[in-house]
């Protein structure tokens, strides 16, 4: 059988798709930002001298990394109101879930980054008399962010792809919008091809941009 392609209907809804894409990018960026804070705290927690704190962080990381994200999304969105947390809208709920999810993965990234930090930087910082907090803020963190930049960009791309799961709780990002267009127009091929192309182009655009940033900030270890 032959399929008659007709992209007209898609073009009519193209602005909706772009809006969905833009929303997805925002969700990913926001989650990466919050997730980075969580991940950093967790990474330092893993290094802590307090055994219970290390155990808590370990449990958090292992549970989140081994649990399907879709289930986490449902748990937070449908489950937390049961605990009396009603103020969360869909978007807040999703961003919180994705941030917690990202935090667990970023904890491992930062932990590896801290572990691979060459001792000579810290020694040099000590030698010029920086206090422990100053050493972290002015030396360790900047170097570690540069070391982990490639892993961070991979995480951002993954997070952006994961925003498609927001469709499951009816957040109008690209996948949700595409499903609607598909249902309304029956232009199956056109709608999904367009969505796939938009995701592809965006992912590789992010990758390309971040690689330029990486080159700009590359450190020689």
């Amino acid at each position, binding site marked *: 059988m032959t399929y008659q392609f007709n992209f007209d209907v898609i073009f009519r809804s193209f602005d909706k798709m772009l809006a969905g894409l833009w929303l997805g990018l925002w969700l990913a960026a926001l989650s990466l930002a919050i997730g980075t804070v969580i991940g950093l705290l967790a990474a330092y927690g893993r290094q802590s001298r307090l055994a219970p704190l290390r155990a808590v962080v370990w449990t958090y990381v292992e549970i989140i990394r081994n649990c399907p994200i*879709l289930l986490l999304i449902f*748990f937070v969105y449908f489950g937390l109101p049961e605990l009396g947390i009603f103020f969360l809208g869909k978007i807040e709920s999703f961003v919180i879930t994705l941030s917690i999810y990202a935090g667990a993965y970023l904890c491992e990234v930062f932990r590896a980054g801290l572990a691979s930090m060459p001792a000579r930087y810290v020694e040099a910082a000590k030698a010029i008399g920086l206090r422990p907090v100053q050493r972290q803020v002015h030396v360790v963190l900047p170097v570690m962010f540069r070391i982990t930049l490639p892993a961070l960009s991979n995480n951002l791309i993954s997070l952006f792809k994961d925003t498609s799961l927001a469709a499951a709780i009816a957040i109008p990002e690209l996948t949700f919008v595409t499903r609607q267009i598909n249902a309304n127009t029956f232009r199956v091929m056109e709608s999904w091809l367009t969505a*796939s192309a938009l995701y592809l182009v965006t992912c590789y655009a992010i990758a390309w941009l971040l690689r330029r940033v990486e080159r700009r900030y590359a450190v020689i270890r």
Partner: protein
Amino acid sequence: MFEPGSFLYEAWAARYGLLAGLATTARLSGITIVIGSLIGILGGVALSYGPWPVRLLLRGYVDAVRGIPVLVLILFSYYGLALLGIQISPFTAGVVALGGFCGAHMSETVRGAIESIPIGQTEAGKAIGLTFWQRLRYVLLPQAIRRLLPPWVNTAVEMVKGTTLLSIIGVVELLLATQQTIARNYLVLQFYFAAGMLYVLVNFAISQLGALIERRTAHFRY
């Protein structure tokens, strides 16, 4: 504790549905991992040694799949294959999408593993007169497989997690079975939590097993 409305009572009442869901999850994971690994080994070898048109084609497949969210692949496969006149169950559509997704990732992993083996291994194989396929079979793949193990285990865990996305197209795997149960008894937190812990347990076990095997074989790597 066991009266109607308590978690344990409701869980017992829903046991057949939940177990069936768990079985479907296991079956889905198993099938997609096997399909993905097969595609991955063939694809990885072809990406490393294939003639350039094959490499180009595979490169397109791998890079495309890696830039598209799995859910989009699943929905595309579900709606798209039906359109082609192929009568297809959500289960099969899901296997196609997840298998293709897994295969793309595995292909890239296998290629990386093969290409990370020092060139001296290939040369030593050539020097004793092994042919291309013999070198692959006896020298390169056995070493590649040892390098592959950690990323392979990661992929397996991702696939187990990824099967939950098929609940969206109506495959009654563990997540959808859980939701169906919740729809009857409204024990939202308890059942999501229990299901979540089940996933965590299974995946944690897979990871630990992988780590164990990796430690055992670490010596045989360069």
